[in-house]
């Protein structure tokens, strides 16, 4: 029985010509673009994000297919800012590449309290475990269009490590003054197959290098061809090396036991039928990972404040008695430590 995390976004290859499609001459690139855009928009809508209507980068009809044949796509979608008036929240990237290394580190924060000389062990205090991921990959190009598209990917990735800003206007002595206010870092949802699964992250590094040994596409007057371009002074590398790093911010409680596992301190806290941190595909999860029934927490008493519709409503005696009985019943169920 598969894990429930293997909801599979179909890749670009579904929209590209392949011998299994039969007559290749009938392949329509524009239709492929539209279909891919539609699919990406659907993925964004599924995540509660606003789809962007822009045209996708050039369909990678060469190296991209090899990348896709072997590896899942790297998908990076910016999470819109929570504050109003803050710019950003529009970046969405999904592309295939040739990964070279994937390094993930889990660092536990331990503090050792040293006591007297000669004590065998210090007292160890645990503070938490932090997860970071670093991926290196190559973007290769067989055509000029692909090289441009790769540089466009780098531009977008480079922008991810800069902060967000908002503009505010203040009026002093009838003069409007515009201020630029820093609004913190950008956050993203990142997905890379079973290794990174829709994790909320911020991007802690981005570096790209041109692989000059792989060569560049040269200038030639006239129109662009697959292997020459018509902009003098433009360098279009055939290969780019990219390093990107993510710090993961988990939305769920991590550890064993916890509020989602009442009476089950040995089970993984998330209580969802999926492995963590990495996906394991079509095999069932281990027993300690299996979901158990969650206990629904009682809703907290509502505080009626001045201005609320029912602020000055006095409940009649029967209603008041019913409310008291309801509170006591909840207390008896053990949701409050001090029922009185």
């Amino acid at each position, binding site marked *: 029985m598969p894990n429930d995390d293997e909801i599979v976004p179909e890749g670009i290859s579904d929209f590209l010509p392949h011998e299994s499609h039969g007559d290749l001459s009938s392949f329509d690139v524009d239709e492929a673009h539209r279909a891919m855009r539609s699919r990406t928009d659907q993925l964004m809508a599924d995540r509660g994000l606003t789809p962007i209507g822009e045209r996708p980068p050039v369909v990678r009809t060469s190296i991209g297919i090899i990348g896709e044949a072997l590896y899942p796509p790297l998908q990076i979608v910016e999470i819109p800012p929570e504050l109003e008036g803050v710019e950003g929240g529009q970046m969405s990237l999904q592309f295939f590449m040739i990964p070279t290394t994937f390094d993930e580190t889990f660092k536990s924060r331990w503090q050792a309290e040293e006591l007297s000389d000669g004590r065998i062990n210090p007292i160890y205090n645990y503070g*938490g475990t932090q997860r970071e991921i670093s991926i290196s990959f190559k973007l290769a190009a067989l055509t000029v269009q692909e090289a441009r598209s790769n540089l466009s990917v780098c531009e977008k990735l480079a922008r991810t490590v800069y902060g967000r800003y908002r503009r505010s206007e203040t009026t002093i002595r009838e003069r409007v003054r515009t201020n630029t206010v820093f609004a913190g870092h950008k956050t993203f949802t990142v997905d890379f197959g079973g290794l990174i699964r829709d994790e909320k992250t911020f991007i802690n590094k981005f570096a790209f290098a041109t692989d000059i040994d792989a060569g560049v596409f040269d200038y030639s007057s006239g129109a662009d061809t697959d292997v020459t371009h018509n902009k003098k002074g433009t360098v279009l590398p055939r290969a780019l090396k990219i390093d990107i790093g993510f710090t993961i911010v988990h939305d769920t409680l991590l550890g064993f036991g916890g509020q989602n596992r009442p009476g089950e*301190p040995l089970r993984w806290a998330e209580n969802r039928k999926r492995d963590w941190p990495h996906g394991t595909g079509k*095999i069932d999860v281990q027993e300690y990972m299996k979901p158990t029934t969650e206990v629904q927490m009682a809703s907290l008493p509502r505080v009626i404040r001045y201005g609320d519709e029912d602020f000055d409503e006095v409940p009649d005696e029967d209603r008041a008695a019913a409310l008291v009985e309801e509170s006591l019943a909840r207390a008896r169920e053990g949701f409050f430590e001090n029922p009185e």
Partner: protein
Amino acid sequence: MTAPANMKAYSGKYKNRSIAGWADSQGYLIRFTHEPTGHQVEFPALISDFTDSHSPAFGQNHGANMHDPIITLKKTDRAISFVMTVLNASLEEARYNRQCVNLLIQMLYPTVSEAGNFTGKPFIGVHMMNLLEGSIEGNGVTCVIEGLAYGIKFDEGILNANEGVVALNRSGKEIYPQSLEISISAKAVVESDRAEGVASPFPVNYPSYGG
């Protein structure tokens, strides 16, 4: 309540082509135990760069007209580090090993109370043949794992759930390395054994390397 997990080295359908078969027959196994929960996971001990260092920390005082310092031993720390390689010879083994590695990573997390507070600190017992056996019960050495690095070198090959270039990997999701390197750096919690008539708090055979 569920029982603690006890994940042994891979012993599935393709064991004969896996390094797990050889490791099991030789007893070359490394076992991790999450002490707050008792969960256990075992891997073939394909170990490189094993280091077990015992580092004394001295205080030094320099007196007048003295060349050499007066030395006071403050403590002796024990740090362990090693690199473990996990090899996958089949898709089935890759999936199973990933679950094992997931459990190892999860061991870096504590037990949590229902109120969300950390309760059991994630001390991990490491048993690696006679090299990390422990001096008292032979159950391994309790460690404070400060860092675990999970590294994939894609050049060494991957396994995925589809048929590669011919069919294109439309599943897109499953990707497993043929070789996965896990680097672990830890501080050992030194065992003590307050036996009668013995002044030293250390077990008589501490540290034990099976010699």
